[in-house]
């Protein structure tokens, strides 16, 4: 009798608990997962209407220099600018205060990332803060299997309006986020992210999305686009 009773009850209990777990996890997943990474509008190329280079990257058009034509320049006194090398990235809204180290491009075209995930890399071949044109490109880890959370762990949480500050040459350069995008790595819009013939902008690149264990890399790049604070988006 007792045995028979138990037999009657356990399938019902299993059904109820099962439904609760399945339903709860589905709801929980839906609630906690961000509705998507895309926010705002990526600022368009500003003052230049440049051609397209062999890698799909905008290249200089003769005579398009912001300082006018180059003819006869050789006799003139030069307009010398010292590069303002970024040394620290601050995004208080997501708890980022990270050292910035210069970095460059490796064979095959990938921008090298500083080995310590708590550091952020600055593409030293790209733009620098305070210039009238060009993109300051910063790149960082979400995390590292070996060394733990990266500086840009929460980059996906920035939103249009989030303030980003880049320290360079003792000055604070303030930017305001205008767009956030998630791109499949294979589909990274190289010109938008790395192109230099643009109105001044800051591009912060990190990685997110699904993790591909076979390559050891995330399949998405999270990219935050920001413009100097106070200027039109």
């Amino acid at each position, binding site marked *: 009798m007792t045995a028979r009773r138990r*037999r*009657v009850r*356990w*399938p019902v209990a*299993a*059904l109820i608990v*099962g*439904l609760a*777990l*399945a339903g709860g*996890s*589905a709801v929980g997943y839906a609630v906690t997962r961000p509705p998507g990474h895309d926010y705002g509008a990526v600022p368009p190329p500003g003052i230049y209407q440049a051609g397209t280079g*062999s*890698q799909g*990257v*905008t*290249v*200089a058009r003769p005579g398009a220099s912001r300082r006018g034509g*180059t003819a006869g*320049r*050789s006799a003139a*006194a*030069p307009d*010398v*600018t*010292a*590069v303002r090398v970024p040394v620290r990235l601050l995004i208080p809204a997501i708890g980022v205060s990270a050292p910035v180290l*210069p970095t*460059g491009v*490796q*064979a095959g*075209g*990938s*921008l*090298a*990332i500083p080995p310590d995930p708590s550091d952020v890399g600055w593409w*030293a*071949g790209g733009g620098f803060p305070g210039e009238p*044109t*060009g993109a300051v*490109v910063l*790149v960082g*880890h979400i*995390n590292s*299997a070996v060394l733990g959370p990266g500086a840009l762990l*929460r980059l996906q949480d920035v939103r249009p309006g989030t303030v980003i500050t880049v320290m360079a040459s003792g000055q604070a350069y303030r930017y305001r986020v205008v767009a956030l995008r998630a791109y499949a790595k294979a589909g*990274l819009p*190289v010109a938008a992210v*790395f*192109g*230099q013939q643009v109105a001044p902008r800051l591009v912060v*690149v*990190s*990685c*997110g*999305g*699904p*993790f591909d264990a076979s390559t050891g*890399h*995330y399949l998405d790049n999270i990219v935050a686009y920001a413009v100097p604070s106070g200027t039109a988006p």
Partner: protein
Amino acid sequence: MRISKLAAASLTAGFLALTAGSAGATAISASAATGEATVTVVHGIPNTPVDVYANGKKILSGFTFKTVAGPLQLPAGSYAIDVRKAGSAAASAPVLSATEQVTAGENATIVAGLTASGTPVLTAFANDTSAAGTSKGRLVVRHVAEAPAVDVYAGSSKVISGLASGQQQALDVPAGSVPAKVTLAGQTAAVLGPVNVPVTAGMGTVVYAIGSAAGHTLTAVTQQYPLGGAPSSAQAGSGGLGADPNTPVWPFVLIGGAGVALIATGAVGTARRRRA
């Protein structure tokens, strides 16, 4: 003008490299996009603070031994470079003069150094910005000191032999810290170092041997510059858990899966019970 033959050669080589590069992916850096060259200036003459002029305009003031200035962005063009003792009049006779041609996107370094016999000289070096291999950087050694030819060791292995004043040599090495030392050619006692030189992936690290061996002012300064043109990808976040760190998927899959299993078990159990 007073640029050494080697400097001219290195500039020519630089231009050739740039020309070759332009067939592929070039003109993409910020400096190229704005028609500018990137120029670094190194002071390697002991006890001689100077002002540096380009086309008559003072661009560096009170520039002292062992200082690396820049990188500076200079519009492409031809420049008359004059080096005068610090604080002397702009019209006074320069200590050193040279004419430099810089092209858009070029990365160059101008060194005020000494020849092997101790004569001050301006030397222009084109910085080779071609990409190094994955996780590699470029180590460049430039001898601009009043000293005989030298050998350079990385750890215990000799990587550069017989480098004379005015010359440079480069090698691509894995990123990391390179324990380097400089000896007089053919000898083993270090005249510089050993010192750990940081080599960064995607970056060139230039070590300048400057000063005077006879004057006991031989020392080294370093400069870093970016390699590899424009990126086509960024491989951040190598390896790890928590793809979307705020919303890991696996707990939901685990719990949801357990729920589905329970539902199935319950359903089977119910069916059996009814049949019984």
